[in-house]
């Protein structure tokens, strides 16, 4: 009798959980894996550093050798243009997308381009509020945009401590920064700097003969080459990776606060390989992929099981600026126009 009650209870619970499975939440099941294998490939658009993206793809292909990942890496803003262009021509090439500009997901969700796909692991383990409860996007990665300098060219005592320090005439012609018209990281960071440090800072910075590059992955490379001494902005993860390889770089978390850039992922509604896309999407939020992104990619993760490598400053000890994709989405044209006025490109 008791067993019968338990069985009935279990049946009710099971029914409830499968009813929830009708919603956005899904897990990696053998059925999903089989369906993904039948598709055999997926197209992954991402703005993450090319090498890191290819590493992730290779790790997935090792786990699922029957499924080929086609990586298409572009700066987030160019990726946004590309997807916009393709969708207006009814070309549904991209299956799953990752962008360093969280504002893009607000636009895509509003346009109805994203599928509701919330990996079970994200719902169970990721902090509430970090992902869209309707499952259109979730934070695959995060990385602050930091100040950094070449330690062979700048002694630690001379190094800047804040954004405003960079206005010192001694940095004239010695700075490099990336471009918000191209990089989602920099667009987000520019918004946060404009809000928290002030646009007058950016206007004065433009008078410092700053070298402009496009991607947020490039400023650290210009420092290593010795082309410039200090980077105003750029990906923390590239600096961490290069430090690990022995490059003479040091990070500064500015006293005004460090811009925080979250890179969500989503699955496209019109994906041509929907099962492979969902499989890759769910896999990329799992511990294996997240730990890889942190270890080999220098990224920050929202997965509570991930272990930070020794020597990296934990996010909790960094004064972070607040990210606000809704405001970025609303102000994007204005941010770009203002930037163009000051920096001329």
């Amino acid at each position, binding site marked *: 009798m008791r067993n019968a009650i338990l069985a009935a209870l279990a049946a009710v619970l099971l029914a409830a959980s499968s009813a929830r499975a009708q919603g956005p939440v899904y897990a990696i099941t053998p059925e999903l894996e089989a369906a993904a294998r039948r598709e055999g490939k997926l*197209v992954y*658009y991402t703005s993450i*550093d*090319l*090498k890191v993206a*290819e590493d992730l*793809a*290779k790790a997935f292909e090792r786990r699922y050798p029957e499924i080929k*990942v*086609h*990586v*298409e*890496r*572009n*700066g987030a*803003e*160019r990726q*946004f*243009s*590309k*997807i*916009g*262009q*393709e969708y*207006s*021509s*009814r*070309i549904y*090439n*991209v299956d799953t997308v990752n962008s360093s500009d969280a504002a893009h997901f607000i636009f895509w969700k509003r346009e109805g381009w994203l599928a509701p796909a919330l990996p079970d692991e994200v719902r169970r383990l990721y902090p509430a509020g970090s992902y869209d409860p309707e499952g259109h996007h979730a934070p695959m990665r995060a990385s602050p945009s930091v100040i950094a300098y070449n330690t062979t060219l700048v002694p630690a005592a001379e190094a800047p401590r804040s954004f405003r320090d960079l206005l010192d005439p001694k940095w004239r012609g010695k700075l490099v920064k990336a*471009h918000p*018209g*191209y990089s989602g990281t920099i667009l987000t960071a520019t918004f946060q700097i404009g809000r928290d440090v002030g646009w007058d800072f950016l206007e004065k910075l433009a008078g410092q003969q700053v*070298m*402009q*590059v*496009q*991607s947020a*992955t*490039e400023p650290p*490379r*210009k420092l*290593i*080459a*010795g*082309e*410039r001494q200090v980077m105003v902005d750029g990906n923390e993860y590239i600096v961490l990776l290069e430090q690990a390889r022995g490059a003479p770089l040091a990070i500064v978390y500015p006293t005004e606060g460090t811009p925080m850039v979250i890179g969500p992922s989503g699955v496209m509604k019109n994906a041509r390989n929907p099962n492979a896309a969902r499989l890759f999407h769910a896999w990329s939020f799992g511990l294996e992929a997240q730990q890889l992104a942190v270890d080999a990619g220098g990224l920050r993760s929202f997965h509570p099981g991930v272990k930070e490598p020794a020597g990296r400053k934990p996010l909790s000890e960094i004064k972070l600026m607040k990210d606000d994709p809704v405001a970025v989405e609303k102000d994007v044209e204005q941010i770009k126009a203002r930037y*163009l006025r000051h*920096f*001329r*490109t």
Partner: protein
Amino acid sequence: MTTVADSFARRAGAGPDLSGPVLVAAALFLAGLIGLPIGWIAAFAFSDRDGAPTLANFIRLLEDPTLSEPLTTTLALSCCVAALAALTAAPLAWMVARTDMPGRRVARVLMTASFVTPPFLGAIAWEILAAPNSGILNRLWRDLTGAADPLFDVYSFGGLVFVIACYTAPYVFVVLSNALDRIPADLEDAAGILGAPRWRIVLGVTLPLALPALLAGTAVAFLQAMTLFGSPAILAIPAGFHTITTKIYTLFQFPPKPQIAAAAALPLLLVTIALLWLQARILGRRGYAVIGGKGSAPRPVRLGAWRWPACLLVFALLALPLFLPYMALLKAAISRLPAGPFDPANLTLAHVAFVFLEFSQTRDAFANTFLLALSTASAGSLLALVVAYVAARRADLPGRALEFLAMAPIAIPGVVLGVGLFLAYTRGPVVLYGTLWILFLAFLTIELPAAFQQLRAAFRGLHPELEEASRILGAGRLQTLRRITAPLLKGGVIAGWCLIFIGTVRELSAAVMLSSSTTKVLSVVIFDLNESGNLGAIAVIGVAMLLVTFAVVGFANWLTGAAGGARPQPT
């Protein structure tokens, strides 16, 4: 089989009436190929977002400094490049074509070889060489002199002028040296007999005779500089300015503003047409002087003690577009730091491994690029052959109209064509965006004029008497075509084929607008890699791409045989 030959012979007996239907078909095809994108550009330039007619786009072009400044910058840039290219190429061409300078044959081959180098690859190589602080040359300069300032900053207006001139001077050089080859010696001899010193002969006789060619080549350099996209995109953005082509490109950021982009493209088209018209007038008026000569072979000027200094100067100049950049690329391909010191600790095979083992786009991009290059070159040289055949056989108005259509794309800058094709083929009825076809059409259009010019020259050099002699001796028309006409044209066809092949591989400005993630070509892959600063991977892909191109072009030239050597004559 015989019936085909018979009917061919019968029809041939009645004259070249085959040209009728061919003419109509070719004309319709060309009109569509060129008319469609240009029509869309004109339509968009004069309409607002809702499609209502307006002049507002042009008013904005004049009033908005973020649009008008790039226009004036571009014009200034093109003038400087044209002047610099002409000033360096003219003495070079004279020394190679008209003097007894040692190594002049090698110099000519090398100069032509710098065509194969895509300008954007040259720009990236020059970043490695002359970035103000990390550039190899600037480092050497500082080490040698102890100076604090760089010798040369490639991220500047002057730097951009220099780098573009490196890859446009060869155009002036080839046009001019070909013209100098044809200037007969007797005019110079006459001046010499009348007692003029050597420098007066050069300035008073040779230069005026070569002036039309010099002006024509300079006009080409101007147009190249004006319409180039890759080099400014790579060098001008770090320098903090836009040219009109990079500006047009940013206008396609989402949400795209094709109306403004189309309006910004029209001035380029107008300047090009004006310049080509001017060029045709200059050449038309002055050209007779050369043709009027008696045709005695040019005799080289003796340089005497200046032979070796001249040779040194020529090869020092060749270092700028060729030796230095190629060395920089080779070094970057196997170095951890592209511009780092020459030392074994800096060596790595990581870039090679990344490009060929890890990078998932490598294989597709190589396949796409060379598939497109082969098909465009084959279809393009066939089309050029047909048009040149019809144009050579018919001097009437339809024939000339066809010739005009085949030459018209030369007036359409790559970026403009890219905009036009994008507008034409992303909306119904035929959506080609996202396929290789749209790239094929773009490349075919862009490269047609060069191949057509090549073949027109070949047909003009073909005396009808040779064919007539063959016919009189009893050969059929088909046999004459096979045994006389075809072998004589082979050199021209293969030269045209090579020109299209090279041009397709190095095309970026239209490709960057038209390629999608599944239809990427190498030029676009390199452009993308540059945006994230992966210089090592670029160097590996660039070197591999050049090797394949040289191999294919070398093979094609080998097919022609040593005697009929195809020497591409760029426009």
